[in-house]
């Protein structure tokens, strides 16, 4: 099976500070991969570099058989979707306007409607709040809008950055229930999460990131049997 996303030798960072050191990564079609690891070691930076928000310093990103051009808008239009950390909603727009922004690059208005239905089915809360401005929402509702907006793009790969960040435990559970539903479809998803126990049941492949490199990769069974590694890095 060919990989949907294939990254080779990717380095990137902020200003003079290199954060990612020649990352290699393959994401197969129709699977859920998780990138785990402690804070401040480049997980979000990797997603930003793949999405094109951060320029790649070296290396190649091939997505759906096509070498990706520079720039986030071009990559987003080719179906590489990032649900960014901290939601990054359009605060002055309503919930529904935010969701429709997710479909900005799409032309198939009938299918866009279907996507919107799908989002409202997954997050009925958003249907209740659809005319409310994003700035008036709670943290959990904002996260739902962020994920829903990502769904609206109907991309080929959805990258979700720390879906549990800054939420109360109960809300985190709800968000992960929703991600579970998404994961059971044919979607390809890559999720970044600090705490591996949250993604253990959702993802099928795991990559542990430390100091801007992958130090361990494996499937769910390997993760279960790798107690020592995880303890070393995450203080389990």
């Amino acid at each position, binding site marked *: 099976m060919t990989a949907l996303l294939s990254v080779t030798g990717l380095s990137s960072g902020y200003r003079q500070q290199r954060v990612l050191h020649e990352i290699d990564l393959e994401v197969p079609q129709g699977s859920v991969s998780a990138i785990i690891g402690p804070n401040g070691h480049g997980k979000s930076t990797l997603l930003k570099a793949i999405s094109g928000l951060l320029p790649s310093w070296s290396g190649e990103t091939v997505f759906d058989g096509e070498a990706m051009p520079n720039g*986030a*808008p071009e990559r987003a*239009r080719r179906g590489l979707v990032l649900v960014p950390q901290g939601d990054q909603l*359009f*605060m002055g727009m309503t919930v529904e306007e935010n969701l429709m922004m*997710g479909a900005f690059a799409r032309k198939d208005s009938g299918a866009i409607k279907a996507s919107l239905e799908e989002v409202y089915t997954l997050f009925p809360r958003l249907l209740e709040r659809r005319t409310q401005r994003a700035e008036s929402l709670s943290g959990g509702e904002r996260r739902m809008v962020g994920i829903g907006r990502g769904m609206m793009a109907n991309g080929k790969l959805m990258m979700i950055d720390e879906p549990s960040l*800054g939420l109360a435990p109960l809300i985190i559970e709800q968000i992960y229930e929703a991600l579970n539903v998404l994961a059971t479809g044919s979607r390809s998803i890559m999720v970044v999460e600090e705490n591996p126990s949250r993604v253990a049941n959702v993802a099928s492949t795991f990559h542990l990131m430390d100091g801007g490199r992958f130090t361990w990769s494996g499937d769910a069974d390997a993760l279960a049997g790798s107690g020592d590694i995880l303890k070393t890095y995450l203080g389990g």
Partner: protein
Amino acid sequence: MDAILQIVITGLTLGSMYALGSVGLALTYGTMGMFNMAHGVFMTFGAYASYTAATLWGVPLPFAILLGVMAGGFIGASMHLFIVRFMLHREDFQTTIMVATAGVAILFQDLILKQFGAYPFKQPAQIEGLYRIGNTVVTYQSLAIMATAAVLISAMAWLLTKTRFGLAIRATAMNQDAAKLMGVKTELTYLQVMIIAGTLAAAAGILISSLASLSPAMGTNPLIRAFVICVVAGLGSVTGAGLAAIALGVMEAAIGYYFGVRYGFPVMLGLVILVLIFKPAGLFGKQGVVRA
């Protein structure tokens, strides 16, 4: 009663010119975080361009005005392509761009001075005649100014709120990175914003010069007024700028009538100080509250 009607009409004329001059400034600030010190020179440029076309080249007036307005869009686009584009993603953009655009303003003002001299030419876009309501005089010129401003501002409002193009601008203004992630080509959006701002400024310049006259420094006072209006409204609030412009125009007309024209501008400047003390984010602006 007559006095009040006269004040309202004068005020609305002033206000609609100010609004046309301010909304472009508010739009560039709101979208790019850029305070364009050359906005006043865009007005001057538009006014001289339509004067040149009509008086020196003999182009029929409607086309000359159209040319002047397009010249504004052109200079807005050029400034973006040659200057702003390269500075946009640098650190301290908000500060450095003010210095850079102030430089552009000085350069263009002096180029216009060199080319045309300081002689106050008359803008050919004049409509003679007046209309009386009782003892109140309404010149056709005022009506034309109000109508032009209303049409242009409505067109911009429609563009911003009802079209896909406007959606891209609003999204970019609210969150640049998120807009990029939605596939909005933000670099193109910035260029479009500069063209719109330049076009509106040039139109304002043509209207202003039709009441006063052409001079290389004619953009300075309107720029300060536009700045005051944007600060009172809340920097970046486009609707707020339009409303504040009308209000300040009427206020200036009232002060001019009761106390003398020379007090209008100082009172306006005093007002901005009061607003900044008691409502630093402006009347329509929002305090930047960040929630994670």
